[in-house]
């Protein structure tokens, strides 16, 4: 509860801070302090400390899993603001408003991590999405940004419509918006209209696939991620996407038995399609930004495994995956938006001119590829191990490993360009603070790769 209330309040505070001070770097500092307070409040909440106690009438259910994900999301946002704050200031004149929108997105994220009914799911998705439509279009003079914003908005509104239809049909069948319960008892003489529920759940599934950009509903992702200002792409591709997965898992935690064995076949199809399209298309990209968009689709395929296996192991795994993926991607984007040229060639010879950047970037890319000693390895390991634990579906694990091997190709292209090619990469000014931040983030990723229990143990206390 703390995170929901405080993030909404901090959003308002940020809007007013734009009136009080015109100094952009001060606004970034206020936002960083606000995020830190939010993190403290949320950690307090995890251990039973409430700022205000609100009876939510079981619309929200605050359990460890969700609260801990909040902590991860807020930490990732804090890292993001500290690393890329300068770029947020450079997007346009309304810096305070951008931060306000980021706080509103976090409010939606905290609702999504602890909703207990379809009403809160809907509100959380919308509170998270609507500020993002605006953030995508912040580069107002740039046609690509306009295009991305309109496309994101139309696709988002369309998938919201589908989601609402799904919710309405589930409500018609069960008579309640609560998760995993049916209020119509057979004794009341009503035949359970399970056809409506199945249809509703399928529509919900489709709309959630839209939101997390799983194939075949991924087509908006590359254009939107490519067109949006780089800093906001970083935010969208990490924290927001991970929150979408948490919502997805919470939603289908209890409902799957209605769908029966078809559910696993359907999900396996979506996973394979997502891995295939994400990885194969990423191989052919010329722009690193677009490659990262497709790589985020491919990573979504891996995160879907948590939904597939649906056990405790998977829940731990998705938290680790969200952490590893968010931290590494935030780091890569922080470096990418410092470059003048977003193509692979733009990275040529970076190791000579900026060795620290090249080193940190290598660690992040290795983590995304899932090389041992980085956080990404254990994240992928937990995802696949959770499927193995369910008993069957070993073939799916093999497919995933093959695609992970393909993904190494396009991540290593960047490393190859940085270390083995000659060139004069143009970057904007890089401060020592930025370098230190990157090295610390890289160290954190290696630390998580050696002791993943740092994240996982926390889950149990």
């Amino acid at each position, binding site marked *: 509860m703390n995170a929901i209330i405080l993030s909404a309040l901090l959003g308002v505070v940020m809007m007013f801070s734009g009136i009080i001070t015109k100094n952009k770097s001060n606004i970034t500092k206020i936002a960083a302090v606000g995020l830190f307070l939010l993190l403290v409040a949320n950690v307090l909440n995890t251990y039973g400390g409430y700022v205000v106690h609100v009876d939510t009438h079981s619309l929200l259910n605050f359990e460890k899993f969700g609260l801990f994900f909040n902590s991860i999301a807020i930490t990732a946002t804090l890292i993001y603001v500290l690393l890329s704050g300068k770029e947020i200031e450079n997007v346009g004149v309304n810096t305070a408003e951008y931060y306000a929108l980021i706080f509103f997105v976090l409010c939606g994220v905290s609702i999504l991590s602890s909703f207990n009914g379809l009403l809160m799911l809907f509100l959380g998705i919308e509170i998270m999405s*609507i500020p993002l439509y605006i953030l995508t279009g912040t580069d107002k003079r740039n046609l690509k940004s306009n295009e991305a914003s309109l496309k994101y908005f139309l696709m988002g509104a369309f998938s919201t419509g589908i989601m609402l239809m799904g919710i309405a049909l589930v409500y018609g069948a069960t008579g309640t918006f609560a998760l995993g319960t049916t209020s119509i008892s057979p004794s009341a003489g009503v035949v359970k209209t399970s056809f409506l529920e199945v249809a509703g759940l399928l529509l919900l599934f489709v709309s959630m696939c839209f939101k997390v950009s799983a194939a075949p509903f991924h087509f908006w992702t590359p*254009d939107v991620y490519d067109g949006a200002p780089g800093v906001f792409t970083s935010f969208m591709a990490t924290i927001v996407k991970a929150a979408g997965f948490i919502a997805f898992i919470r939603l289908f935690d209890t409902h799957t038995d209605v769908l029966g064995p078809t559910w696993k076949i359907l999900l396996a199809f979506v996973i394979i399609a997502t891995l295939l399209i994400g990885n194969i298309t990423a191989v052919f990209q010329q722009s690193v930004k677009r490659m990262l968009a497709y790589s985020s689709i491919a990573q979504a395929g891996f995160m879907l495994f948590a939904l597939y296996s649906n056990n405790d192991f998977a829940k731990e795994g998705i938290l680790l995956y969200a952490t590893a993926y968010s931290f590494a991607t935030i780091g890569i984007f922080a470096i990418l938006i410092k470059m003048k040229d977003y193509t692979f060639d733009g990275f040529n010879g970076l190791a000579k001119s900026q060795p620290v950047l090249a080193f940190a970037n290598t660690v992040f890319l290795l983590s995304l590829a899932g090389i041992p000693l980085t956080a990404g390895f254990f994240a992928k390991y937990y995802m696949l191990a959770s499927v193995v634990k369910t008993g069957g579906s070993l073939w799916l694990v093999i497919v995933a490993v093959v695609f992970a091997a393909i993904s190494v190709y396009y991540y290593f292209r960047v490393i190859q360009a940085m270390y083995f090619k000659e060139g004069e990469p143009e970057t904007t000014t890089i401060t020592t603070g930025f370098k230190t931040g990157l090295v610390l983030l890289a160290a954190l990723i290696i630390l998580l790769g050696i002791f993943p229990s740092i994240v996982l143990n926390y889950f149990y206390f």
Partner: protein
Amino acid sequence: MPIQYYIYLCLALFSIGIIGVLTRRNAIIVFMCVELMLNAVNLLLVAFSKMHYGLAIGANPETTVGIDGQLFVFFIMVVAAAEVSVGLAIIVMMYRNTHSVDINFLNRLKN
């Protein structure tokens, strides 16, 4: 009136909305079709709410079953209004740069 009629009507409205989103090229009309989808859902929720109420009232005259469906409708209206404000702002922004609200322009920029 049987609940089926409402379901058919809502599905028809919803399908018109979906077909409109997929086939029309004018951003405003696409947007109106999305609104049509949302309103079809509103109608369906109200119908289901009434149905659940009607089923429960026989057993317990004091029942409040079905009230949450109508509550949901208000939330959908509020969110739809918020979405309209953002969506129209985006369309206006696009119009200022391209002097058109045709979404074919989106595909022109694809590399």
